[in-house]
Structures are given as structure tokens and as C-alpha cells.
């Protein structure tokens, strides 16, 4: 302790930082941390709010985000990514409408628990129909499409 007192300010701050890194890493290792990595492609034709919405939906399906997990606040995610707050808000609104998340003032956006056998929106069925048609036109056989679907489904288990 006496040695710490003698240290120059920067050295002391550095020691604090190293201790802090060890604690952070230990915390991450000890408990299940519900976090995820978002990617945003600004050159893509897909709007940013849809990109965000899709990544959250996939993360829920793959079990990376569990019911009760908190999402970053709109402001924090906007600050971090540089995306407009309105864009993040739009994605969260959409997820809320679709029942993937619920929001309240205290906890912010939280992953909602979904009942097995929840109804699938007709738009999803239409999108699947379109995707299957595209795969067919690309020359994939029925079996190839089914095995691809099974593979993708398994990834989400």
C-alpha cells in the first residue's frame, strides 16, 4: 500500500486499470453474460433498422438472447454505433409490435418470453415462399433446399 502511494499518478492509474481488467474478465468468465455483437452494413440496400431487427430476431432464435435479457438503451446503442436514435427506436418499436421484446421505463427493452406455437405472421410465410422460389431458380433441388433449411434450423437450436 505504501508503495502504491509513492507511485506517480499515471502509474497508479495503470495499476488500477490492470486490476479492473482482471475483474472484468473474471466477471465475464464466472457468469453468463447476455451480450451480442451487432454488425451494420451502411452500403447494404436493407434499411439499418431492419438490419438491427433481423440480428436481434436471429439472436433470440439461436438462444444468444434469452427471455428477460436487456437490450442496450436506444441512446446507448445510437451513441455506440453512430446510427440515428430514431433508427434504433424504429427497430425496437418493430420488435415490440412483433412481440419479440417488451419495453418499460425502468428496464428499457427486454426480450419477451414467447409461447411455443405462437402464430407466424403471413408476411413471414410469404418471405419464405419467395426465398424458396429464389433457391429453386438458382438450381437447387428439393432435397438440397430441405437440407439447407434443416442446417439453418439446427444452428438456431
Amino acid at each position, binding site marked *: 500500500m505504501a508503495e502504491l502511494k509513492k507511485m506517480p499518478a499515471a502509474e497508479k492509474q495503470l495499476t488500477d*486499470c490492470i486490476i*479492473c*481488467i*482482471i475483474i472484468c*474478465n473474471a466477471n465475464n468468465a464466472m457468469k453468463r453474460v447476455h451480450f451480442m455483437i451487432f454488425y451494420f452494413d451502411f452500403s447494404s440496400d436493407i434499411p439499418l433498422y431492419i438490419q438491427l431487427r433481423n440480428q436481434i430476431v436471429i439472436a433470440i432464435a439461436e438462444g444468444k438472447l434469452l427471455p428477460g435479457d436487456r437490450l442496450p438503451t436506444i441512446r*446507448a446503442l445510437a451513441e*455506440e454505433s*453512430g446510427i440515428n436514435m430514431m433508427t434504433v427506436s424504429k427497430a425496437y418499436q418493430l420488435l415490440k409490435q412483433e412481440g419479440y421484446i417488451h419495453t418499460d421505463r425502468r428496464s428499457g427493452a427486454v426480450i419477451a418470453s414467447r409461447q411455443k406455437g405462437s402464430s407466424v405472421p403471413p408476411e413471414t410465410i410469404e418471405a419464405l415462399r419467395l426465398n424458396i422460389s429464389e433457391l429453386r431458380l438458382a438450381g437447387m433441388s428439393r432435397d438440397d433446399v430441405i437440407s439447407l433449411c434443416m442446417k439453418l434450423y439446427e444452428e438456431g437450436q
Partner: protein
Amino acid sequence: MFINIFLWASIIWVAPLACYLLINEAKFKKNIVIGVTLPYQAREDEKVQEILKRFKKQQILVCIILLVLAIPCLFAKGLGLSMALWCSWIDLLVILPNVVYVMNNKALKKVKAENGWKRENTDSIRIDTVTIPPDKWLSPWVFFPAFFLSLLPVIWDKNFWTLYAILAAIPVTFWLIYRYLYRNKSETIDENTGLARVLTQVRRRNWRRMWLVCAYCFSALSLVIFLTQSNPMLGIILTIAIVFFITLAIIRVEMNTRKIQEKLTAQSGRDWYVDDDDKWIGGIIYYNPNDSRFIINNRIGTNSSFNLAKPAGKAIMGFVVLLLIAMPFTGILLDSIAGKEIELELTKTGIVSTNGSARYSILYEEIAEVELLEKLPMKMTRKFGIGMENLLRGSFSAEGIGNMEVCLDPRYPPFILITTRNDKHYLFGTRHTDLTKQIFEQLSASLNSEQEF
């Protein structure tokens, strides 16, 4: 000569300081050196080392050139010429080191591309939610005592209330800067989330420290101004000491941040690492149309910068460029104002003093008393206006008189002190001693005849 030495002493140290800070950019911090992100293996590369050495030498050379160029400023005659020379010198101080920086940044980028260290420019970003910092800020009440202390002297000294109000506004401004000129973004440099969190904490802590220190130092400045009114020389010395302390504190905070960034990231850059070089023009100017934020954090150190892709960023850059161009002309402007004749005349209705666009007029019936002063009143301090060696114009305050409007050349006494019926004071003069005396006599005579009548 005293003013020249004073100006020299208060500006000259900026050149070695800028040199020191820029040379520090030649040390790897967060995998970045002279604004270029490089992988770990590039640190020992011969070409990279050569550029870094050259950069340091060139910065030292620029510093020496600037110090030599400052010598003629010491011998400049007149405040106008002195201002023009110093402003031109400041322009060079801003431009020359940055030109060297950009040149070496370009050279490093070339080496980066030749060695295949350059990552393909993508329009995508990666956000790790675990590193997102909490949205927690110091309460404005922490800055409130500084505001209160700055405003405190108003209780005893109402003459300078505008000055104390300005000084009190400074801690408030610092709180606004602390709160809104910082982007609450994580300092992610690679996949080590713990490191990112700590680097973010270090930056936040030092940012907070910097603005708190500045706020409280400026409140001390307000107290110094109030307490040293009877001893202006002590006031000047203490003001310089406070400014020196603030500068030292800011540099210490900045260097602490840089030192920690350097040590904590000494081993990074081996696998995946963040490379934002395509968003930094010349390693100095941030330009990212995909970033909706206007304020961004500098990659190295504690400071903030602007996103030039935003209209506000362009406006600020335009303003800075205009300011740099206009600065040397301020001296010429001052000289032209001071060179204009100070006219004093008696009209049918009253006395009128004019200098350039400024005009002061007092009706005869408003005048209560007229006095001829052989020298300027004791301890005259400027509140607002021009205070040059050949022109005093604007609102001043003097011991024994209080607030007064002044328009005169201090080199040519005597001066006419006019007190109005509503207790306002005016101090006028011309550049012709006989004319001033003559106007005083005429004014006294006309006032006496009015009183007799």
C-alpha cells in the same frame, strides 16, 4: 517593450508544448501511430521506424523555426503591429506542425498499403454490446460551487458585475462541454472486452477531471480579480499562475490518458483489431457520413473532435479557417481604429466626442460639473472597449470616480472629466493639448454663464 515581453512570455511556450504533444503521437497507442493504425508486427518495421524518427526530427525543427520567427515580435513597435505579427505567428503555429503531421501520416499509410497491412474499406461496423458504457454523468451540482464562487465578488463589487457574470458563466460552459462534447462510446480496439471497458473508464475519468479542474480554477480567477484590484501587478502575476496551473493540469490529464493507453495496448494488434483510418483524413480530420453523431472522441488522448461530414462540422471548420485568415488583420484593424482622429467639439446643444464609429454626446443642461485633469485618474481599468497605448475608448472604471465612458489618447494630457446631473462620468481628450484646454475653458464659461442666467 514590457507589453511585447509580456505577449512573448504568454504565447511562446505553446510552440514547444505543441511539439511535445505531437512527438508523443509517434508512440504506439491503441495500435495507432501518427494517425495510422498498424498491426503489431509493424512496430519493429524499419521503414515505419525511419518515418517515426523523421517525424520527430521535423517536429523539433518546426519548433525551432517557430521560436526563431517569434524574435521579431519582441521588437515590434505599437500594439497593432505586435498583434499582426503574433497572429501571423499563431497561424504558422497551427499550420506548420500539422503539415508535417499530415505528410508523415501519408508516408505511413503508403508503407501500410505496400505491406498489405491495409484492411479493405468497408461500410460496415461491429458493435459489441458488452462494452457499451453506462450513460452516467456527474451532476451539474458538482460544478455549482465553482459557479457560486465566481459570482460571489458581485456582493462587494458591483462595478465589475459583467466581468464576474462572464467568469461565472465559464464553469457552466465547462459543465455543458463535459456533458455534451463527449461521445459516450466504448474504446474498443480489439476483441478484449475487458480492455475496452477499462480504456473507456480511463477516458471518462480523465475527461471528468479535466473539466472539473478547469471550472474550479476559473472560479479562483474571479476571486483573484476581486482581491487584487488595489494591486494590479499582483493580479497579473496570480492570473498568469492560474492559467499556467490550468494548462499544466490539462496536460497532465492528457498525458496520463495517453500513457495508460500506450501501456495497456502495448501487446495488442496481433489478431483482429479496429482500423478506422479511412474515416480520418490525414489522421486529423474525422469524416464519416455514416456516423450521425457530430461530436466524436479523438482516438488518442482525452479530447473530442467534430465529424466534418455533418453540416455543423463543415460550418465550424469554415469558421476556424476564416478565423485563421482574419487573425493577422486584427492588428491592422486596431491600428486603423487607433489612427483615426479623436474629435472633440462644442455644438449649439452640447459637447460631442467622436472617434471612428464611436460617438459620445452630452447636452449642456445634463452637465453638473467639469474638471480638467493633468493626468489620467489612478487605477483605471477597462471594462469594455479599446485599451491601446494611443487610444482609450469605451467603458472604464477608476478609483475615486467609479464607472465612466472614455474617449482619449493617454499620451496627450490634459483630459476633461465631465460629471452629469444623474452622476454619470465622461473623460474626454484630443491629440492637441491646446485644443483640449481651449474646449475646457469654453465649456466652463458657457456652463458658468448658464448658471448665472
